[in-house]
């Protein structure tokens, strides 16, 4: 591996483009190259009735962390007010719950705070975040700026400013937009990338996943009409936009998610 990896990789893009498989494969890839990487998701985005708690599991040597909003909020307030009692009380008040649930951006602020805290606690840790679907990635990136503007002073303001400077540091954070090789998906990915670029100076690259055409390129005439058209569309899309595509991944003929992860491993060096 030539370059030093960043500390936070955010994989985003709409649902079903293979974000989960790709980000897991990327964690494996980093681990294979002697980095300490974790796969991270958000368990919930609103405060529910039952406390779930953060969870950490290990599967085939890969660490997976799932963050719970209530626990993250509680530990943040606890650290700030130096009282576990008061913080558990605050997160349980109906008022606090209503506020957090009404404004989803608030929950991202809490989650991102926790992720950066983890990075501070362990300077070797690389977090690979399997982020929520596209529109909400913008909400997530925008949340920190918005809340910095809302809080003009005080501890949260300072914390948010610190968060923002790290999140916005291209050496620290890299965003990967994952998409499929269809015109509509591609246009959405470009739209998402420019939306993200307006909001953050960090690198935003596009990965095109699940390309069928490399598999059938030599036998196009033997394909049924819609599948042939699909392959042809993919091919011309990739040829026209290759310079904008950081990584192009072929369709995997495996059916099991773990086997697909393994199929991807060889093609991920460009994501560093």
């Amino acid at each position, binding site marked *: 591996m030539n370059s030093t990896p960043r500390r936070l990789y955010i994989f985003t893009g709409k649902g079903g483009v293979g974000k989960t498989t790709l980000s897991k494969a990327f964690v494996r890839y980093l681990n294979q190259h002697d980095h300490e990487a974790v796969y991270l998701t958000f368990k919930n985005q*609103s405060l529910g009735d039952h406390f779930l708690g953060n969870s950490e599991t290990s599967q085939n040597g890969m660490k997976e962390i799932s963050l719970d909003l209530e626990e993250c909020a509680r530990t943040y307030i606890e650290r700030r007010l130096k009282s576990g009692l008061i913080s558990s009380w605050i997160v349980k008040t109906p008022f606090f719950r209503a506020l957090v649930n009404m404004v989803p951006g608030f929950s991202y602020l809490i989650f991102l705070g926790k992720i950066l805290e983890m990075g501070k606690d362990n300077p070797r840790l690389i977090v690979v975040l399997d982020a929520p679907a596209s529109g909400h990635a913008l909400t997530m990136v925008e949340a920190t700026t918005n809340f910095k503007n809302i809080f003009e002073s*005080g501890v949260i303001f300072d914390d948010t400013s610190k968060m923002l400077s790290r999140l916005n540091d291209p050496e620290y954070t890299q965003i990967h937009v994952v998409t499929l090789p269809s015109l509509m998906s591609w246009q959405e990915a470009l739209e998402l990338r420019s939306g993200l670029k307006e909001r953050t100076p960090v690198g935003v690259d596009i990965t095109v996943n699940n390309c069928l055409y490399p*598999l059938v390129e030599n036998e196009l005439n033997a394909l049924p009409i819609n599948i042939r058209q*699909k392959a042809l569309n993919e091919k011309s899309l990739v040829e026209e936009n290759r310079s904008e595509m950081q990584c192009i991944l072929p369709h995997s003929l495996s059916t099991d998610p773990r086997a697909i992860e393994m199929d991807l491993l060889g093609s991920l060096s460009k994501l560093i």
Partner: protein
Amino acid sequence: MPLAPKSFEIFCGTGGVGKTTLATSRALNLSQSGKRVLLVTIDPAKRLKDLLGLSSESIGEVTKVELEGVVLDALLMSPEKTIARMAEKYQTPDLVENKIVQILSRPYGGMNEILSLVEMQMQFESGAYDCIVLDTPPGAHFLDFLEGIGKIRSFFDQNFVEIFSYLGQKTAKAGTKVFGLGIINRIVSGGVRKLLGYLQNVTGAQFIDDFIQAIQIIYQSKEAFLKGLSLQDKLKIKEECNWFLVTSVEQGKAQEAIELKSHASHFIHQDHYLVLNKCLEEELRDWHPESHNLLQIKNTLESKEVNLKIRLKESFPVVLEFPEVISLSPLEHIHFLTKKWNQYVV
């Protein structure tokens, strides 16, 4: 198969599965059957715009669109415009002036979901429509949001009267006239004062002032918010609402659709449909490739799709299948889908 039109038709899904296109074709089909239809999209990708040829000036405004021989009303949600409409309708001009409300009602400020409910409610109340077709933002988020509504409602509950009494005191000091101070002042409970005191330690005093003002203003508009939230009750009623959970073969996400459903079990009633888009099975069945490579591809694609359908049919009472029609132009595509709905209508 009974697929009767309802007052509300909600399309949820993972995004990129053709949800907007399907919602549009459904709206057109309803419109062709003589219904007065409004198509609302809060999908931040604004795909509907391209499809319907809407200009950027039309964002946030109800716009007439002529397609498939009918005229349809379409609305691309703009949180800012909805806030402005609320302020006008409920005569709460402060709503557009408050800094916190302004920041949160930016396109990605995070209030899309609640405002879309308020908007749908206002449009429904206008009496201009028989059907409102909603294309929701991708992912489980909208359903999560609906699940959390009970808690948001409590925001406006009597329990919070104490908060506002405290806020009232604050603003009264600043010389502002506030609602029913005399009585409320007497029932001040220490709890809220303490909470705000702790908050002030971490947020700074300026935020508390802005916040109090925002809460007060939002509270003044509580009728609008509560009415919007009460829409959720209608969505729970079978006679009022059809739910469409959209997924596509390409994305092969049976698990996601099933989770989406179990997630939403509190309010999704029996009239919900799994819409499986971009099916290739029919085409694959008639394809007999000679090369080993293509045969392997055919078999993989076919078995993925068949397994997907088996899993979906185990969990959903009705699965509506729409084939992949990639060889058509966008307009021909819409035409094809609009006609396809007839197959499922009573």
